[in-house]
């Protein structure tokens, strides 16, 4: 039928509501994503809550200066996510929840991140064969 949209399916959806700088959960989520990508599968990550802070353009490419190592280069979380997306074209995607981003005044995501309304949360889950919900906001 003309006009029918076939929703793309993903192997894994990671819903990450845990906050950066709280514990090692963000690192674990990225490692989990990478390990599934390494198996040749596709991964989509839905950032909820404070996880939306990870991909703000205001981070720039590098973290603030380390006063104890002023010449050191420390990639920002935005840079790490952007590099991971660039390394996995078409197989890794990052979604920013519009409501959580707006609630936190964190709407300035890097261009590689896709905005999605929470009204599409369940349909996003239905578009993946498996969903792992990593909570802890």
């Amino acid at each position, binding site marked *: 039928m003309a006009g029918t949209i076939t929703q793309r399916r993903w192997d894994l959806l990671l819903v990450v509501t845990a906050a950066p700088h709280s514990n090692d959960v963000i690192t674990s989520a990225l490692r989990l994503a990478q390990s599934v990508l*390494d198996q040749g599968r596709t991964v989509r990550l839905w950032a909820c809550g404070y996880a939306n802070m990870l991909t703000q353009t205001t981070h720039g490419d590098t973290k*603030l200066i380390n006063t104890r190592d002023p010449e050191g280069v420390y990639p920002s979380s935005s840079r790490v996510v952007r590099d991971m997306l660039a390394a996995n074209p078409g197989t890794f995607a990052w979604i920013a929840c519009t409501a959580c981003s707006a609630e936190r005044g964190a709407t300035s995501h890097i261009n590689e991140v896709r905005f999605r309304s929470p009204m599409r949360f369940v349909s996003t889950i239905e578009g993946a064969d498996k969903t792992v919900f990593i909570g802890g906001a």
Partner: protein
Amino acid sequence: MSEYRVLGVIDRAYRGAVEVQFFDALYGILDFRAQLGAVALALRGAAVTLAVDEDIYQPVVEFGPVRMDTLPDYRTSVRQLITEGVPVMVDEPDLRALGFGPDDVVPGVEVLDTNELAARWPEYDGVWFV
């Protein structure tokens, strides 16, 4: 420089890795040190493991071709604190509960009973729960 003397108490360890890198709780102790008359560190709870010595950890994680070698390195930070003369103390029962003893910590770290640790609070102008 202020004469203000601070005891920093850390109960909760491992507050992020990829997003944190050098900017961890021990960096706060190292970085504030220049503003203070004296600073000391007390590790309790799971944070006692920050002072458990080892030599195999590498601050590296690889996400496919994206390699980071700047993850937090707590043992190195504890060694730096000791080198710079900052007293580092560890709660003995918490250390023991996790299967470690006084011989397992970074050289120079003091292992003290909970009550001894608390008895030292009056030596400081401020006790900060970092």
